[in-house]
Structure formats: C-alpha cells, structure tokens
C-alpha cells in the first residue's frame, strides 16, 4: 500500500491514545504494516499530546517537519501549533471546539480568536475538514467520544485503505461495552463530516 503518515494532536485527557489504539488495531487486522509513537507520563497532565502513526512500509514511528500526510486535530489551537509538520498536500481534519489552557484561565496568556486563522487554514491547504467535535460527541451521547468523532472524520476522507466496517468492528472490541453505542454514533457523525464532501 501507499505510505501514510498520520499526526494526531490534542490535549491530555481527550482520548488520543484510544484513537490511535483503534486505528492501529484496524491496520493490524487488515494486515497493513503499522507503527506509532505515543506520549505517556508527565505530558499527559493537561499538556499537549500527540500520536504519530505510520502506515505501510515506514519504519520510523515519528513524523518530521513537513512530512505529515494527514493532520488530525482534536483541538483548534493544537492543530495550528502542529502545522510545521505539514506540507501543501497535507489533509487537515480538525475539531474547532477549544479547550482553554489552565494558563489562560489563570490570566497568564490569551487564547486567540479563531475565525481568521481557521479561514486562512482553509485557504492554505487543499483539503481541510473542520467540525465541532465536542458538539457532535455530545449529540452522540457522550462528550468523551470526541476521539471517535475524529476517527470517523479521518475514515470518511477515504485516505486510508480500510473499510468503514473495519472501524466499527474495532470500536466494538476496544471500547467499554456500555459506551459502544454512543461511540458508534460518534463515529458515524464524524464520518458524515468528511465522506463524500
């Protein structure tokens, strides 16, 4: 298969590790080579979290400057922060619901107005998909399913060599039983954002 470098960025607590676990399991079951690099430990305490996922014949589980084929942002400021890892052809899939850093709540920094930068994001890149991830997750039944909304949105782009069913099956095995229904809905909501656009 074609090589794919997927960079997922967000904030500690947004479920980015489960997002990448599910994606990894889908690849494993489909027999597609997969490797990833995760963030554990101190950085998870409300800090910036990223997972690098590579599919196909790539050994390095890290994505360097300009190398991402897809950038999946769980939070708009984190999407903007990660743009150095993109190039002109990078497909951007991002939630627009902000998570205000503690440092901003404490009055020590300001959170930017996003209207202008998000408009520029759309002008700069060929394919940009923006969605209110938290809102979609809540509508599906739980705000914590933002990660699966993002997964659905990534799947819906058609960039990955996996069928929609593969994702739904992996969600059924990896998500705790009582959250499966909400997560399947969350996946569909995300998928609808990008599929057929």
């Amino acid at each position, binding site marked *: 298969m074609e090589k794919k470098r997927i960079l997922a960025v967000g904030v500690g607590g947004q479920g980015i590790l489960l997002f990448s676990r599910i994606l990894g399991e889908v690849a494993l079951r489909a027999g597609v080579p997969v490797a990833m690099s995760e963030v554990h430990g101190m950085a998870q305490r409300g800090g910036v979290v990223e997972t690098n996922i590579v599919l196909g014949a790539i*050994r390095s589980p890290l994505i*360097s400057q300009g190398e991402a084929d897809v950038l999946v942002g769980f939070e708009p400021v984190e999407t903007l922060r990660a743009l150095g890892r993109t190039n002109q052809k990078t497909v951007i899939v991002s939630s627009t619901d902000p998570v205000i850093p503690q440092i901003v709540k404490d009055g020590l920094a300001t959170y930017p107005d996003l209207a202008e*930068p998000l408009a520029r994001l759309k002008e700069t890149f060929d394919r940009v998909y923006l969605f209110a991830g938290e809102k979609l997750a809540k509508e599906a039944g739980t705000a914590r399913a933002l990660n699966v909304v993002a997964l659905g949105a990534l799947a819906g782009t058609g960039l990955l060599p996996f069928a929609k069913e593969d994702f739904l099956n992996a969600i059924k095995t990896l998500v705790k039983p009582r959250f499966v229904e909400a997560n399947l809905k969350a996946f569909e909501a995300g998928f609808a954002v990008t599929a057929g656009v």
Partner: protein
Amino acid sequence: MHPLITAKAKQKLLLLGNEAIVRGALEGGLRVGAAYPGTPSSEIGNLLFQLQRELLGLYFEFSTNEKVAMEVAAAAAASGLRSLTCMKHVGLNVAADVLMTLAYIGVKAGMVIVTADDPSCHSSQNEQDNRYYAKFSGLPMLEPATPEEARQMTAYAFELSEKLELPVLLRTTTRVSHARAVVEVGDLAPYQEETKGRFEKDLRRWVPVPAVARGRHQVLLEKMREAMVLADGSSWNRRYGKGRYGIIVSGVAVNYVLDAVDELDLAEKVQVLRLGFTHPYPAGLIAEFLKECETVLVVEELEPYLEEAARAVAQERGLKTTVLGKASGHLPRFFEFDPGQVKEAVARAFGLSYQPPKPPSLTWVPELPPRPPTLCPGCPHRETYQVIKEVLEELGEWPETIFPTDIGCYTLGLLPPIQMADYLICMGSSVGTAAGFSVATNQRVVSFIGDSTFFHAGLSPLASAVYNRHRFTLVIMDNETTAMTGHQPVPSQELRPPELEDRPRIDIEAVVRALGVSHVVTINPYRKKEAKEAVRPLLAQKELAVIIAKAPCILYRARVSKK
C-alpha cells in the same frame, strides 16, 4: 485473562515496546520481578504487577526504590530464579551502588535490568545516556530498535545472562518503550506451579570483601572478553547494503537510518551496520566494516558511545576511515533524533542533495498560548500549596521563603500562579537540600515531597536532619498513591484496591515521629481554615517540623471506587 498472556505463538499483537518487554520476559520464564516506577519504564511494572495474579510462579513487587528492587532481583537470580528489574534512566543512579558490585559477584539464573532512557527529557530531569553504565560496570547490553526486537531481546537476555553469569542491561529509550507496533509473539514459558530457587553458599563468590573482590574483578574482565566474541557473532548485529559509504547505528535511530536509505535510494551506495548487542561493542565486526568504507557516519542518540568505539577500533587497527558523527557536527549530542534530521545528516555526510519537505508559509498563524502540563482541576496539591502560601503571606515570610521540591506531579507547582518550587535535583532531594539551605542561609525553608518519594528517598535525609538539628519545614503531600507514573501502590496508603487490602500499612505520621521529629501535624488540605490554623504554629517557628497534607489523588480515588 490478559490478552498479553492468552496470545498463542505466532499471534500478532499491537504492542507498546514496554508490553513487548513483558511478553518477552514471560516467554523467557521470568520468575521474580521488582521495580520502582518511572516514565518511560512504568508500564512494565504495572503489567507484571497485574499479571502475577494470573500466572502461578510469577512474583512481582513494587519496591520502595530502584536500589531495593535491584537487590531483590539480584538475590532471586543468585538463588537460581530468572529475574528482572526495570527503571527509568535516573533510577539506575539510585541502583548504581548495587549495579557496580553485582557485576563482580554476578548471577546464576538470568537477570535482566531494563533501563529506559529519556532523550529530550519528555518526563525527566536529565537526559543521561545509560549506555555508559554498561561500560562503567562491565555488563553486557542490548539495545532494541522496535517493540518486536524488545520482545526477542528480553527473552534472549536471560540466556546471555546465564551464559556469562552476569546481569544483562536492556537499554530502551522513550521512542522504543512508547512505540506501538505489530509484534509476533513466541511461546509463553510454563507457569503452572509456585517455584522456589535454592541459594548455594559460596563465600568466595557472593561476599566481595577485598580479597574476593580483587579476584572477581579479574573474572569480570575475562567475561567481558568472552562477551565481545559473542557480540561479534551476534545476530543482533547485522549488515545491509553495499558501497564505499557506511552508517553505524543503534537504538530507535535504526528505523530512521533504514528509512533514509530507502527514501534517498542509497542501498547500492551505503552499507549499514546495525548494532543491537552494543556492550561490549563488537570490535571485530566494526573493524571489518570500517575497512570496507571510506567514510562512516555514526548515528546514535545522546552520547558518542559507538562513535568513540569506532574511533578506538580504527586507531587500534591502523585504519584511515573517516568517522563522522557528533565530533564532526553532523548530529547533536543532545535531544532525541527525528527521521528528517537523520535523513539530512546522511545526505550531508555523503555529499548527496536532499530537499526536506517544507511546510507552507505560516506567517498568518497567531501567537498561540502555551499548554504546559498542569495539576488537575481539584487536585489536592493545589489546595496544599494554597494553604502554605496564605499562612506564609500572613506571617510576612512570602516571598523570601525557599521552596525545595521533589519528583512527582507536585513539581508542577513551579508554574504560575503557584510558583512554589525553587530547587530540585532528584528523588528525595527536597529533604537533603532543605537541610543544606537551612545551614547556608537565614531564609525560611519549606520543602515539598510526595508520599511515594518520601518512602523512596526521604527517610534517610529526614533522620539526618533530626540528628543534625536542621531547621526547616517539610510538607509531605500524601495523595495515597504514586500518581505521576500511573497510580502504583505506596506503603502508607489507606485507600487501596481490594487485591491490596491484606497488606500492612505504614503510617507516615508514626514514621516521622519515630524518626524523632516533634513538631508534626496532619491536615486535610481541602479544609482550608482548619488546615491553616494547624500549620500556622509550625510555620511561625524555625524548628524542624513536618506537615502531612493527606488527601487522595482525585484520579486515583475515581479509579479505585470504580472497581
């Protein structure tokens, strides 16, 4: 049963490097494990702690620190049981006293010491390169590049250890321990019955008084010669490609180099010497490789360990090969590498043109707020800091007070708006350095340490402070767990999961009083008014005092109550 132990041979699992190490250890017949948690090694201990309930004949404990853990594992290996201890890189400093002499007396059954290094300091106070511990102690070392290699090398490390009767270092880095990739597992060793070893006495082996130690040092050096032959013939040390240029590489950078060779289309121009058995370094293999190359680039994170080896080999054999790497400025001696950086270094070393992919113009991106890790909303540490701060302000001691701090979530108290962390070195340093500041200055000293860190390295300096009449206030932030590394148990915890209900409990206040501290109070930091009243007299005087701020970590409480 956990999927890591139900998986049958040849099954493919998506494993974290640390999970692969655990699987490899269980394939290798691990019997006794002991560890103190530390990122990026923590998942190894967490898993073994959990799996021992499912595997008969596997024992694992969280010891109070890395030195104790290594001693537990050493004695098990001396008694004929395969053992493992794992720790973060700085943990090996704590256990270094054991390591250096354990190398002399050696082991009977295989013993694996996992050291998980943290280039770029993702979760650490330094980025020391523990490969030098292998050189320093004279112990064999393996360096996996991927989770699959981590599994295989761990199982092999037991065999190597038994062959040489020496413990083996398995050195990972964050990007190996926390990489997740497809691993094809092997057969699990049988775990069907409780297994005990037997210790055979041998004074001239196990008791390194000077007369014994002198002999054992020579034995160790002989074993290193034997190990170098093994390294030369090891299947972990492999060669690829052909050409007059060469790359010597180890660890996670193996992946970056092999990708660079593919992407720059260098298979016909550049040979790669990929090393996994790196101490003792395979001198014969390196010599052959250097002989065939005009120019060799050494690609390794942190210190120039292999680069120095290559230069030494070239000098010994009179080879004129140019060795490039850190000394030549092609790669830095700090931080972890990334694949793009390695690609550029390879291209530059061999005079190839390479245009790295460029991001589009991003001048329109506004200034973004930083998002440093912070204490969780509702975290009891926030409350404790606030209580102490308000009392010091009321006493007119703010902001002159010096706040030595320690290793744990509460180190995040350095950030605004708390800013109550002024000095930090290592585990337990809050107590010893508080003593030093109280001797060296007239400033008030209030230091902070967590419950787990207190048992790890706080007891001995507190005894020293009592005896030497030091004058400071120590705040023990008892959140009833080792929070930062994933909620491992602490001997003092009251709140505990059912499987730990039968453990004895060591009360921190009783310990502190027994050490001879007379001014001691325990507070609930959420009850601010009462807490302030209780600590005020202690902070208003200068005698040694201990404040125990006791309230469980909110994440831990939620986790235990869910079970």
